[in-house]
């Protein structure tokens, strides 16, 4: 798509650049780095911007809810404390994680 835009001048390549996997990966890396510094708290982020770091779950999700409508691009994320994140990973087993069995 980027190459097509450059050759045929179908549009600005800023859109393509924003969608590059490398960019997405670097955002998740940045979010993970912030969360790792606060392993016992809820971290609320939108892209690279830290919106809230708190141990209050209700407060974290109140900020997350407001972030959907603040007009800035991107999707907000609540990163739970490390203990809950590990729990989620361990439980992601079974048929629900094996879509090829039914698709």
């Amino acid at each position, binding site marked *: 798509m980027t190459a097509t835009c450059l050759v045929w001048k179908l549009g600005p390549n800023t859109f393509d650049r924003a969608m590059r996997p490398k960019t997405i990966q670097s*955002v*998740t*890396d940045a*979010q*993970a780095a912030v*969360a790792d510094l606060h392993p016992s708290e*809820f971290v609320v982020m939108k892209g690279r911007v830290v919106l809230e770091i708190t141990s209050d*779950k209700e407060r*974290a*999700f109140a900020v*997350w*809810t407001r972030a*959907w*409508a603040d007009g800035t691009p991107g999707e907000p*994320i*609540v*990163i*739970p404390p490390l203990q*809950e*994140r590990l*729990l*989620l*990973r361990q*439980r*992601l*087993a*079974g*048929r*629900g*994680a*094996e*879509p090829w*069995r*039914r*698709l």
Partner: protein
Amino acid sequence: MILLREEPFRVAEARFHSGGGSDAQGLVVRVFVRFGKWAERAELQAEAFIDPGADVTTFRRSWFGRFTAVASQPTPWVSGDPADKRGRAVSEPFEFRFGTGPWLEGPVSTIERADDRDFPGHEDILIGRDFLTQNGLLLVIDGATKTYSLLHPGDDANRGTRERIRQAITDDAQQ
């Protein structure tokens, strides 16, 4: 109380993928879902696949998108590890209801999948073993008639059924 009485095996009515085969019959049922806050606690309808082989109950994210008219935000509360692409935790409490039965609390281990390609099957929700065990439900699958039932434990008749089955298994094991 019987939540589902001899429902036939069937396929989901809601199709998100082309080429879904009609032979992919399963324990598919229409359920009502109600979140703690999201969508103003409206009773939302969904096609669900009851999958005793799945560890965790899973929502398809695109299903949430159907309720933009009643919801002020795209999804209920979800949280996740940015490095984990397999799903995010549904952090908002919710309940399921089958037909005219009672509301049953959803499991805290529930996840949502943002990518439809990762979702197993064509349904909106995959109801996993976590929900069945949390509510002590008895799932009876009759392969001969291709029907299934879901029984709630808060009923003498159901407890009797469960005891008869367990007794029969015990008797067989002793012979």
